[in-house]
């Protein structure tokens, strides 16, 4: 601690000298002033720790000096102890009101003076310390506020990173689906392109053979009957599996082989193509005619045009179903508001996207009660089903049964997914919702899928439960309020 300095002010040289020597001995640094004016100047210049101020002085008395001190920002806090002679008239009240902290009387009892000086210096030190601490506290508060702001910003960043992570998890799931979806789209596209080729060829052939056809119809009305019978039977026929087609072909071959009919192999092929499986006997007499083969070929062209058009329609339906599901899945609801959705429909959307994986060996069994529309964040709910279904398919290595049950009871919607996969130990089960916990190989899963599922369910004030047994399978059960 630095040495304390004391300014002594007195118009009597003897007093000054006595005080000076006494205080120096005590280890203080001492300044002295012989009158008020000098005192003010010395105080301003040296900023002493304390002032011992005589009251009765010519020109400027002690009160006035004190007032000067208190008026100056720099010297205002220096404690002033008044010194007064016992015989002087002394106004204690005034001494305090002008800013003095204490007083002593002459002749001095030096112990008393030193004690008071020491006390006020200590007080002053304490005060200074307090001010300094206060300043430090203020600084700390500012710093803390800054840190809090930074934390807030970090938290905001984290939140946006989290939502980016959720989004990227969704995109990753989408990416895994894309390859399969390419197949789902390219298959109908292939069928469409081939159907159009077939349709055009049949159309061209029909046009080319039109004169011949009209002539044979004009010549013999049995030909027209044959044409329409074939078209009618073909239209009424049902779809045949590959196996059924083979059986039909064999049957036709057997039946025709005993008949004396031209171009039997062509005939069998065309009749199989037209799926003429019933009422063949009534056709037989009509077939026994030189020209009937050209009528049958004409019928084949017409059937081909219808069949290929039907195939195009089927293919378009198939492709649009996939695209529709994809669009629903990839849809990002920017409004951030809940919308009413059909829970079963949203599960179906995800199943459509996973169709190509499911069909590889998973049987999906659905038990669904009809549900009221549910208010929720639609694309987030899609993500819940996606993650659960994806995990189920992986747990079963694409072979087994996935049972989906949707129950509506007591204002709650319970959706459960049960797979017949590998199941998991209770140790894994306990950690399954932890972020970045994964049992999958590196690169196969981010480990945040189920964490996201849990967050989304929590966001809907819902609940998610899991039951699992090693070797038997796992059930995920999602509880949602049906609040509207």
């Amino acid at each position, binding site marked *: 601690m630095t040495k304390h300095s004391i300014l002594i002010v007195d118009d009597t040289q003897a007093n000054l000298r006595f005080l000076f020597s006494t205080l120096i001995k005590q280890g203080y640094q001492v300044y002295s002033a012989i009158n008020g004016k000098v005192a003010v100047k010395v105080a301003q210049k040296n900023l002493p720790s304390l002032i011992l101020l005589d009251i009765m002085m010519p020109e400027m008395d002690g009160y006035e000096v004190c007032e000067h001190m208190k008026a100056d920002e720099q010297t205002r806090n220096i404690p002033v102890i008044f010194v007064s002679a016992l015989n002087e008239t002394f106004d204690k009240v005034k001494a305090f009101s002008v800013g003095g902290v204490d007083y002593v009387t002459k002749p001095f009892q030096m112990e008393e003076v030193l004690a008071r000086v020491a006390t006020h210096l200590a007080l002053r030190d304490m005060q200074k310390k307090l001010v300094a601490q206060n300043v430090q506290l203020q600084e700390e508060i500012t710093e803390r506020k800054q840190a809090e702001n930074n934390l807030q910003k970090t938290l905001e960043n984290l939140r946006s990173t989290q939502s980016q992570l959720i989004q990227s998890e969704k995109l990753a799931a989408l990416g895994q689906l894309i390859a399969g979806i390419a197949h789902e789209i390219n298959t109908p596209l*292939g069928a469409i392109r081939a159907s159009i080729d077939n349709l055009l060829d049949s159309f061209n052939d029909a046009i080319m053979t039109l004169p011949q056809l009209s002539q044979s119809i004009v010549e013999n009305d049995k030909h027209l009957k044959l044409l329409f019978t074939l078209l009618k039977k073909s239209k009424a026929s049902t779809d045949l599996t590959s196996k059924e087609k083979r059986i039909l072909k064999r049957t036709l071959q057997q039946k025709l082989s005993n008949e004396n009919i031209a171009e039997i192999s062509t005939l069998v092929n065309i009749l199989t193509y037209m799926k003429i499986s019933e009422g063949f006997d009534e056709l037989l007499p009509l077939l026994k005619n030189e020209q009937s083969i050209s009528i049958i070929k004409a019928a084949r062209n017409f059937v081909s045009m219808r069949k290929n058009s039907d195939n195009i329609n089927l293919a378009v339906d198939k492709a649009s179903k996939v695209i529709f599901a994809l669009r629903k899945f990839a849809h990002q609801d920017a409004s951030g508001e809940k919308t009413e959705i059909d829970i079963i429909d949203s599960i179906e959307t995800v199943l459509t996207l996973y169709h190509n994986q499911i*069909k590889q060996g998973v049987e999906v069994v659905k038990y669904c009660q009809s549900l009221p529309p549910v208010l929720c964040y639609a694309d987030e709910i899609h993500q819940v089903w996606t993650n659960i279904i994806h995990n189920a398919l992986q747990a079963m290595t694409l072979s087994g049964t996935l049972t989906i049950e949707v129950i509506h009871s007591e204002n709650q919607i319970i959706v459960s997914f049960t797979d017949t996969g590998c199941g998991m130990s209770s140790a894994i089960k306990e950690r399954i919702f932890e972020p970045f916990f994964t049992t999958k190989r590196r690169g196969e899963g981010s480990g945040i899928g189920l964490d996201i599922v849990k967050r989304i369910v929590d966001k809907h004030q819902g609940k998610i439960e899991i039951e699992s047994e090693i070797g038997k399978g796992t059930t995920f059960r999602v509880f949602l309020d049906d609040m509207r």
Partner: protein
Amino acid sequence: MLDRPKLGSNAPALEPEKYCHRYKKTMSNKAILCVDDEFIILETLVEQLEKKLGNKYIYETAETAEEGLEVLEELINDNVDILIIVSDWLMPGMKGDEFLTKVYQQFPDIVTVMLTGQADEESIVHAKNSANLHACLFKPWSEEELIRTIKSGLEKL
């Protein structure tokens, strides 16, 4: 011209079924097998082959690889030669590359072609190495490409 064989007086009388069997042989005993789990693909594919390649071949279809193997066995029992198999890759159960590999191991003369909607490099390479894959066509395929591939495959025989 009649497809039916002329029955000479010294031709032995045949049971209808056996007769049918013989008869079929005279029609055609060369087959092309198409395997795909989508019947719209099978229907359109076979129609394309039939109209471009005509009655020279029997066109058979199967909706799974497992059924494909069954058909293969049936045809062989009927003394039909399977020349080419065109198979999808992504099907329920056995995948195309595995199926064609099995076929190749048993019948190395059959020309194998894959027709897929999904360019799965690994399984194409697998089929090339272990099923002697003649070609891989991608959906949506063009008719011209399909016929050219089948014809070039037939030329290899």
